[in-house]
């Protein structure tokens, strides 16, 4: 039997589910793009409001979910990400007349899945969250009715993400066979006795399966093949959603499983993760150099970014005292990455909202600085933040990575981070230079984008700068709650 406290802790999930049903009924009775958008945003805001006043110490609701500060914070981030996506998507969909209302339904379902995922402490809730997110995303990627690229992207994502889920589940089945528990917290005790008593070969195999499944979803190096194609083929707002909400949620659950289950005590896992991290920093940054499509550049850049983020997990293995710092560093870096990437893909969405075509080629932004000074300034800030230039949020995130890497004395990884960041500056700045080029023919100004879209983008830009110039409040907040 559930107590009222537990039910109250689940309020955001309940509100999101109610919103899904209301939206479905609304679509059944009367189709209206604006109506669907408002119901979606109202649901998201109510869910956000229902998170206020929860106990930050955390409460375990059934063995499946733990509603704690980490989970609540990322639930809030995910919901804000969905609000941004839905506001930007409305203009984008208006340019593509079709039956577009179900787009918002899928968006709400994916949000619910991501929120379940960040609070999951059990294999069952992890599976449900992951698949709710994944299956809704297949639909969102394939949404544009006439797009050949989006159809191809969707089937590629479906097949590879399905294979990743199967790999992940097989790993968890092996781990269950070895330890007899599917709960992340109990896992730690069981693993301790196994490590002492017998050889841990089955645990290592299981961890390899689980980590490669999660690595697929995060698209780090040997498992990154799908990323550029899916980013390119997906509609621009969904590229942003996939890059931020979906990947962020998967990383949070990885962090939970890895730290709660104390998997960092296994030397083999740390070595494997280090190899994967170095490979993805180098592969991501090197392959991004030769791309001409902005979405593909962002795809390779995200491969590199998650390589940097893996340093945090590896540091837990060498220096156990650094675990609280690791949570803080991962949270700050993820927040910075999510805000920045939403800003960058937001500009692409706004540009694509002005025509029926996706405007994601590097040629589409040539001379943008002279036509849309404010928007391109925002994009420039986002690029500088991804490159890790001081005074932006990305710099503080990278500073955390350096701090934690240096504390744990991971010099090989640190040099890969430096080389990767150096390469990164080149292609991020290439995009900025393309915007400042003076075009021969200045296009007649197309219709203006809507006020919501532009103000959301402006807000994201200000946030990137605020977190970069004055990061102390957020840093204090994170170290207090985590």
């Amino acid at each position: 039997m559930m107590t009222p406290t537990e039910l109250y802790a689940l309020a955001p999930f309940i509100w999101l589910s109610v919103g899904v049903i209301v939206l479905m009924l609304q679509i059944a009775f009367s189709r209206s793009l604006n109506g669907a958008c408002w119901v979606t945003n109202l649901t998201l805001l109510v869910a956000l409001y229902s998170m206020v006043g929860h106990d930050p110490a955390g409460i375990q609701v059934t063995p499946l979910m733990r509603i704690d500060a980490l989970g609540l914070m990322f639930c809030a981030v995910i919901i804000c990400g969905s609000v941004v996506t839905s506001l930007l998507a409305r203009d984008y969909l208006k340019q593509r007349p079709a039956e577009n209302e179900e787009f918002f339904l899928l968006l709400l379902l994916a949000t619910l899945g991501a929120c379940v995922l960040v609070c999951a402490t059990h294999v069952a809730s992890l599976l449900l969250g992951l698949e709710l997110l994944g299956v809704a995303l297949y639909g969102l990627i394939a949404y544009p009715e006439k797009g050949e690229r989006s159809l191809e992207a969707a089937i590629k994502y479906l097949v590879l993400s399905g294979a990743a889920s199967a790999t992940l589940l097989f790993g968890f089945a092996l781990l269950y066979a070895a330890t007899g528990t599917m709960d992340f917290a109990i896992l730690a005790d069981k693993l301790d006795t196994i490590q002492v008593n017998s050889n841990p070969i089955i645990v290592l195999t299981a961890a390899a399966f689980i980590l490669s499944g999660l690595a697929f979803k995060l698209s780090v190096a040997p498992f990154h093949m799908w990323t550029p194609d899916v980013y390119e083929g997906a509609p621009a707002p969904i590229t942003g959603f996939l890059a931020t909400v979906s990947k962020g949620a998967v990383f949070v659950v990885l962090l939970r499983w890895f730290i709660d289950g104390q998997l960092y005590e296994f030397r083999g896992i740390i070595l494997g993760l280090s190899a994967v991290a170095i490979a993805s920093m180098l592969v991501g940054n090197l392959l991004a150099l030769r791309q001409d499509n902005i979405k593909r550049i962002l795809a390779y850049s995200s491969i590199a970014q998650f390589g940097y983020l893996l340093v945090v997990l590896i540091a837990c293995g060498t220096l156990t005292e650094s675990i609280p710092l690791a949570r803080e560093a991962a949270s700050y870096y993820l927040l910075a990455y999510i805000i920045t990437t939403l800003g960058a893909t937001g500009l692409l969405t706004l540009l694509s909202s002005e025509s029926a075509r996706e405007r994601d080629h590097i040629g589409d932004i040539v001379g943008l600085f002279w036509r849309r000074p404010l928007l391109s300034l925002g994009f420039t800030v986002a690029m500088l933040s991804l490159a890790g230039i001081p005074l932006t949020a990305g710099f503080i995130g990278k500073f955390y990575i350096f701090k934690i890497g240096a504390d744990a004395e991971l010099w090989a990884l640190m040099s890969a981070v430096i080389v990767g960041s150096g390469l990164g500056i080149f292609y991020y700045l290439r995009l900025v230079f393309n915007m400042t080029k003076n075009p021969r023919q200045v296009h007649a100004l197309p219709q203006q984008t809507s006020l919501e879209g532009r103000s959301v983008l402006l807000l994201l830009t200000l946030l990137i700068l605020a977190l970069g110039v004055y990061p102390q409040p957020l840093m204090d907040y994170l170290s207090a709650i985590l």
Partner: protein
Amino acid sequence: MGGLVVPLEHVLLLAGLLFICGLTGLMIRRNVIFILMSLEVMLNAAALAFVAAGAYWGEPDGQIIFLLILAVAAAEVSVGLGLVLQIQRRFKTLDLDQASRMGG
């Protein structure tokens, strides 16, 4: 709970073989329908391993996860078949290599 009658290793080995069959099929087949079937084999291999492990520990948890996997696999494949219809209509083929337009 009756527990597991055969040794756990045997069932895990069988599940591993099924998983590898599925993975191989996924990689060498080019027809979308066969790829979806291979995906199903992989998911069911994981489900079989869960049932075996649950029986070994004498807990119902393994079977519950099996039911969840069953539902998840059905959802994946139903969306997948929807996409198959679209692919057939758009590209007039179910061969993924021929339908592929983008670089990677």
